[in-house]
């Protein structure tokens, strides 16, 4: 086997592992939405490598090789790029931590933009050199592109899966050491062929340096500088604060912190007379705290839990069987136990949280999650929506806890996160798992100006309207305190007695009633006063015929969310934003939700940067200033402008089409696999591995009967049909397998992805094969375009999904692929 192919697989695997690790590290040190922006831009290093190599390709790889068919110049360039990649994986991460960057000051200090630019540059270096290795190999072995691309995709697939598994075993910062080590292995493998010949000393030196470098990192692991403004940092400033435990997994890094000053009771009434029990804080990614309460089997000390908005439902159902979705540290489970329930099914996504509460701190937590729990609590590790779809039994009360932290909610940082829990389809699923008279209770942080609870109300109303025999106006109630609101959905009407209980509960705790059937307007907005009883008005409007006008006139997007557009936390409306900035000016800054705006900012920057990166080489290629025209026997084809533009169109289409489908499938399969880690790992790995197999098979297509003349058209045609078929096929298949075991769901997912990915892996090598035969000097440029398209389309796919839904993104992908096919067809 060609050692370079194995080397490319190792480096490609290392690059994707680096990308995934970087997202994790940034999410811990800063915030996820900034991670998304900075890493997306840094990924343009891929495109830059294509640009740089296309400008100096002849000089970089030399003429056709003198020995082994491999040029000495190519060998040296590849080795140097590989070494610079591995060193920069660690070096650039360490270096970027010295850049003075405080994203929270971005709105106040425009100079922070310079820091961001510095971060882009620093973090793009590893991607530049890593991608340069693959691009150089592509140039050198263009005749074998199907095999090379197979190794590239195979390595990426294994790298993606490997790093996610590894994150369970070692902390994310240590992953960098492993990634660098894999990169070094890639360089060594490439040098393997020369080990016994003229480069013995060089190879030995590389191996020695690698051993020392990796050895040093093993004993001096890289530390992550966490922003001082994250919750963990703030808490550790308390004089008695100490970290008791640390856990890590792809779902996040958990820190358990002890401090007497930790007190978390979201939605606590201002009139409570009960003291709060001591707590331990569990921080996920140094923020988003959930609390473990010092329970020690004394329910009488938990009186304060009865004074939260989410406790209302316990006054309306007798001794219920309760399902708590998002159990976290156990606050909602304790609330249930305090109110004397029959049983509690507690569902939590992160098994390490359950382990910390149920084992590590079981005594402190009163053994509520322990296997030998004296309470009727059963713990389930699952994602909320997946659990409810698979649940066989019905519940008297389904509690949906506050799953996000108050700070993240306020900053709008979840704007890019999809949630399949707050959608029309999800509410229907939940409703169908209620016993007659049962209640769903959903609690959310309140935002100013109001939008969360209003969208939740709208989503619920439209969900209930889709169920036969349900009259939403009779089955809903909404209350609010000063920070939280709770929506109740009853399977049955709220009777007069229920209404009296709601009024009494709220009056005793100074909570406001926002809606219940036949509620008089005078009851709204009494204790926690807003300038306008907006929650009451909104509920009335949504239940009336004027609903659409209300949605249109509201300054935020509060339309119901669906499984196709599951962005519950994305409230921004651009027309309102412009109006807000016009009328409020600079003071609008605190009200802006940054997640979506940063996405748009990222897209604009990426488009501009990409245009520069793509047009620069075109300018020189046209002038014939690159070395290819005069210095190299392999680049003798004349420059033809029309073919250049077709190359641009074709490879841009492939990059965009591939990423649109891949991104949409990751999001869609989240619904089936019910776990973000599984979804990313399975979908990414399956796509890359089967696309790799498609690549391996691609050139055989040129030898099959009628397909011989138009293999690309055939591949694109088949994949388009499959993608369109899946639009119809996936919902019933998901519905059929949602309740199945994880293993079966993974097998089904792979089985669905495999044929589509197989054909998606063909067009790229077929295009490179054509270029190699007709316009070989454009190969590096094509690589750059494809890399650029992958970055931009990943961002664009999220923008489009938020605006139009994932089905539209898939349709667009098919359209883009077909355009690419037409371009190729005309060229071929």
């Amino acid at each position: 086997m060609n050692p370079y192919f194995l080397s490319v697989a190792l480096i490609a695997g290392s690059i994707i592992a680096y990308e995934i690790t970087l997202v994790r590290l940034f999410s811990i040190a800063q915030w996820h939405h900034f991670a998304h922006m900075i890493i997306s831009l840094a990924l343009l290093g891929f495109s830059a490598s294509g640009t740089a190599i296309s400008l100096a390709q002849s000089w970089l790889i030399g003429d056709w090789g003198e020995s082994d068919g491999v040029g000495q110049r190519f060998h040296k360039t590849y080795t140097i790029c590989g070494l610079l990649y591995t060193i920069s994986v660690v070096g650039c991460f360490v270096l970027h931590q010295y850049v003075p960057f405080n994203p929270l000051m971005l709105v106040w200090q425009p100079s922070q933009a310079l820091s961001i630019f510095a971060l882009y540059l620093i973090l793009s270096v590893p991607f530049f050199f890593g991608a340069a290795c693959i691009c150089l190999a592509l140039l050198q072995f263009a005749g074998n592109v199907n095999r090379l691309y197979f190794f590239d995709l195979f390595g990426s697939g294994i790298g993606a899966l490997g790093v996610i598994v590894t994150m369970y075993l070692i902390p994310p910062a240590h992953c960098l050491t492993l990634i660098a080590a894999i990169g070094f292995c890639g360089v060594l493998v490439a040098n393997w062929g020369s080990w016994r010949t003229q480069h013995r000393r060089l190879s030995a030196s590389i191996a020695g340096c690698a051993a020392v470098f990796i050895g040093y990192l093993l004993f001096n692991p890289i530390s992550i500088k966490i922003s001082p403004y994250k919750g963990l940092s703030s808490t550790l400033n308390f004089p008695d604060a100490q970290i008791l435990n640390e856990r890590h997994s792809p779902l996040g890094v958990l820190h358990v912190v002890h401090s007497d000053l930790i007190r978390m009771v979201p939605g606590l009434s201002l009139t409570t007379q009960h003291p709060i029990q001591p707590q331990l804080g569990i921080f996920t990614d140094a923020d988003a705290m959930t609390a473990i309460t010092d329970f020690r089997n004394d329910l009488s000390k938990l009186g304060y839990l009865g004074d939260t908005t989410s406790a209302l439902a316990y006054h309306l159902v007798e001794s219920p069987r309760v399902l708590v979705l998002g159990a976290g540290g156990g606050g909602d489970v304790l609330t249930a136990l305090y109110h004397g329930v029959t049983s509690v099914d507690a569902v939590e996504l992160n098994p390490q949280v359950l382990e910390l509460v149920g084992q590590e701190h079981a005594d402190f937590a009163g053994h509520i999650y322990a296997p030998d729990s004296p309470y009727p609590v059963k713990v389930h590790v699952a994602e909320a929506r997946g659990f409810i779809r698979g649940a066989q039994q019905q519940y008297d009360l389904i509690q949906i806890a506050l799953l996000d932290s108050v700070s993240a909610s306020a900053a709008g940082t979840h704007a890019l996160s999809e949630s399949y829990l707050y959608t029309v389809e999800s509410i229907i699923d939940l409703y169908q798992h209620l016993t007659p008279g049962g209640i769903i209770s959903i609690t959310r942080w309140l935002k100013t100006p109001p939008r969360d609870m209003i969208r939740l109300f709208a989503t619920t109303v439209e969900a209930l309207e889709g169920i036969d025999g349900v009259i939403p106006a009779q089955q809903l109630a909404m209350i609010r305190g000063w920070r939280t609101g709770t929506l109740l959905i009853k399977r049955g009407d709220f009777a007069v007695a229920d209404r009296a209980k709601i009024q009494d509960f709220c009056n005793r705790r100074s909570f406001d009633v926002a809606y219940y059937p036949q509620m008089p307007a005078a009851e709204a907005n009494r204790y926690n006063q807003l300038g306008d009883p907006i929650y009451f008005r909104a509920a009335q409007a949504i239940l009336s015929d004027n609903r659409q006008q209300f949605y249109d006139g509201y300054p935020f997007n509060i339309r119901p969310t669906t499984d196709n557009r599951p962005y519950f936390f994305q409230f921004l409306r651009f027309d309102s934003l412009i109006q807000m900035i016009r009328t409020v000016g600079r003071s609008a800054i605190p009200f802006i939700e940054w997640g979506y705006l940063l996405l748009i900012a990222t897209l604009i920057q990426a488009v501009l940067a990409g245009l520069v990166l793509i047009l620069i080489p075109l300018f020189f290629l046209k002038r014939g200033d690159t070395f290819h025209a005069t210095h190299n026997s392999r680049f003798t084809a004349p420059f033809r402008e029309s073919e250049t533009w077709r190359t641009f169109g074709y490879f841009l289409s492939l990059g965009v089409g591939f990423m649109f489908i891949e991104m949409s499938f990751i999001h869609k399969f989240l619904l089936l696999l019910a776990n973000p880690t599984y979804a990313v790992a399975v979908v990414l790995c399956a796509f890359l591995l089967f696309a790799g197999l498609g690549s391996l098979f691609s050139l055989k297509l040129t030898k099959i009967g009628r397909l011989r003349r138009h293999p690309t058209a055939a591949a694109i045609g088949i994949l388009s049909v499959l993608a369109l078929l899946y639009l119809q096929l996936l919902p019933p298949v998901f519905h059929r397998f949602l309740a199945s075991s994880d293993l079966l769901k993974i097998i089904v997912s792979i089985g669905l992805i495999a044929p589509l990915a197989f054909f998606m892996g063909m067009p790229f090598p077929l295009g490179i094969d054509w270029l190699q035969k007709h316009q070989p000097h454009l190969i590096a440029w094509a690589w750059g375009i494809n890399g650029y398209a992958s970055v931009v389309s990943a961002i664009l796919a999220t923008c489009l999904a938020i605006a139009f839904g994932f089905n539209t993104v898939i349709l667009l992908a098919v359209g883009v692929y077909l355009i690419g096919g037409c371009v190729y067809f005309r060229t071929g």
Partner: protein
Amino acid sequence: MRHSFFIFATFLLLINIPLHSAPDFDSDRKWMVKTQIDAKGITDARIGVKNQAVLEAMRRVLRHEFVPDRLKSQAYVDMPLPIGYDQTISQPYIVAYMTELLDPKKEHKVLEVGTGSGYQAAVLAELVDHVYTIEIIKELGESAEKRLKRLGYENVTVKIGDGYFGWEEHAPYDAIIVTAAPDHIPPLLLHQLKPGGKLCIPVGGRFRVQTLTLVQKTEAGSIMTRQLMPVRFVPLTGEH
């Protein structure tokens, strides 16, 4: 061509280097009050401060003494600033707006939870009889105490401790100000508030105050809150 590029680049660099002259903090402070706080002077949609005593206090307190040396030049700019230990000194406007909401009187006794740099306490000290302020971070509390003493604020008492339980010894208070937004309001603070008293909490994070919650204890002892935006959103939501 290449030379002219370097000359142009050097010029660009030079025009960005500030010429260091002695800062005129007095003028800066007056300008800050006039353009960022005073209802008569502000031009954007924020709700200006009308209480003349509060405006005068903002003119008197030397804000630049409460920020780290390296940030003194930005002390009167319309923005919050970091003061270390993950804490910030609030945007001047927010300090003034919160102070006005408390309706401070010369005879009042005020409790502040979260001393930080001591700036809010100094502004309050200009307006009320006595300010009691609690800071959990020892280093911040001690430096604020020294700073306030040095600047002559004899009517401010600083305690290092947990503000969650208030300061029972000096209760009840006419007003309480909590400078960091918790997820709930500590019940004991409400117990230490006089009937008719006010408690103010900013909501929305250190660098982005979105709303202020004003808690009022009626003469009868019942509790009510009002969500107040420091910005007029009338054209958008009908709220005020």
